[in-house]
């Protein structure tokens, strides 16, 4: 469903993505790994339309979305769970869910009830302002906000960033639940355990390109790849 060809993108004079190719099948989960600064977040932001590419194609179900505005990309069925959550601090949980649900109503299976069943902690915080939530709860809210738009593809930028291990487990369970529902996921992650737990395949980026891709089980069994590309044992 996602086809990325020869994608080049970056910031002002700094070219970060340099001819990146990537494919993602419907219902699959890809864990995207890489050292800091290799372009993982730039890729996610470029796919979402937050960073304008200088060349290349981004197709979702055959529709070229490269360089389109984020609201156009979102309406085409792509959702983003950004790094650092970026929830709307002054809005309550209910207001946030309502805003997202208005965009996704009637477009797919995700309703507020279903999302709150997946992320029950949010159900206890409905009247709280998003800015008052803990980091883990904000991450759940960011996931709920993305799901309620009923996307065909969810881009997740470091969902475990800055969270305690117990909370990362909760987020992992939520991702597994999304996977079971058939949501297509591109998960940029530094936490290998979380990536291995949810991803069907692992891709590794280096210098603005995808330099390795293999099924998760194969990647885990060959520690030399992780050592060479990520610097971990």
């Amino acid at each position, binding site marked *: 469903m996602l086809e990325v060809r020869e994608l080049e993108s970056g910031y002002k004079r700094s070219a970060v993505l340099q001819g990146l190719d990537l494919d993602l099948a419907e219902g699959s989960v890809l864990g995207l790994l890489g050292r800091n600064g290799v372009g993982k977040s730039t890729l996610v932001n470029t796919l*979402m*339309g*937050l960073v304008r590419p200088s060349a290349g194609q981004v197709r979702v179900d055959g529709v070229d979305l490269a360089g389109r*505005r*984020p*609201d156009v*990309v*979102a*309406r085409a069925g792509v*959702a*983003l769970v*950004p790094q650092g959550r*970026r929830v*709307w*601090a*002054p*809005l309550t949980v*209910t*207001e*946030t*869910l*309502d*805003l*997202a*649900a*208005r*965009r996704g109503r009637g477009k797919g299976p995700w*309703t*507020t*009830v279903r999302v*709150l*069943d997946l992320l*029950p902690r949010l*159900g*206890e915080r*409905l*009247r709280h302002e998003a800015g008052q939530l803990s980091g883990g709860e904000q991450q759940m809210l960011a996931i709920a*906000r993305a799901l309620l*738009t009923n996307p065909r593809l969810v881009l997740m930028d470091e969902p475990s960033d800055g969270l305690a291990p117990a909370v990362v487990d909760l987020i992992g369970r939520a991702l597994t639940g999304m996977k079971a529902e058939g949501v297509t996921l591109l998960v940029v992650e530094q936490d290998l355990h979380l990536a291995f737990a949810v991803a069907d395949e692992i891709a590794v980026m280096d210098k603005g390109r995808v330099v390795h891709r293999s099924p998760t089980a194969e990647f885990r069994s060959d520690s030399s790849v992780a050592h060479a590309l990520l610097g971990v044992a």
Partner: protein
Amino acid sequence: MTATEKTIAVADPVTGPTGGRRSGGVLRLLPAVVVLVLLALVPFVVDPFGTSTLSRVLVFALFACSLDLLVGITGLPSLGHAAYFGVGAYTAGLVSIHVTAEAPVPVLAGMVAGGLAAATTGWLAVRNNGVFFLMLTLAIGELVFQLAQSASSVTGGSNGLFGIPAVRIAGEPLTLPGYVYWYVLAVAALGFAGLWTISRSPVGAVLRGIRDNEPRMRSVGYSPFRYKLAAFVLAGAFAGLAGGLFAAQVRLVTPSEVGFELGALALLAVILGGAGSLWGPVLGAAVVVLVRDGLGPSLDGHGPLVLGIVFVLAVYLLPRGFAGLAGFGRLTARTARR
């Protein structure tokens, strides 16, 4: 029904009944009703000058609240908002002179004119943010000010538009300050209710989301331009409504009602009161009008100096305005209960 569904049924207006929220809403309305009743009693206990001053406070408060929709709710600080107040005032005055002074036609005409003027200029202004938006709105304000000065055949030029007849209700002219005050109070209360409803509606939530993080609002599929333009037009319409009330109360409209100073004073009222709260700017407007019109004359025209000192003190002592004090009070009460 699962435990989660039960929770939503009580508390979540997204999908279920909102009974709990509605009963809380009625209780929240109680202070507003009490304030409204107390304000309605003012002409019985205050002299005509005091009543007229309070009418000016109400008009300016509605204007400041319309600016708060832009500044506090949407995050678009404007220096040219007086343009729409002035357009509304001139339109209401002209309608009263040439068409009818029968309520509520002049103020509604002012409201429509303010909204149309905002729609005409807003499509350009809201494409920008921050200092660019500020400068564009300042330029628009100055353009309208110059137009009010130069189009003397319509606006009366620097002499102003005078000879505006008293507003009429069922053919009876409202000449006594008390009657004019009640008319201003009724229309202003409806204006406040309208602005409050907008700020608490889903559109208001989108506007607050845009203020907090515009790119994220785009990422969920919203086009901020449309919502910002809608906020700009609505703010212009309510400023026009306030301008129409001004014309009914003062019965003279001059170019100063379009000028930078009035817009800057409204911004001061919003900051003093607490941007984004809507009720805070009402208090801010009261302080501004009372210092300017009440204290100023006794200080040999140095009211603006006092306002400047009040502003500096407010920035340091009340960074979130009077509304911030209420928030602090609620926090203290919660802490005490624990």
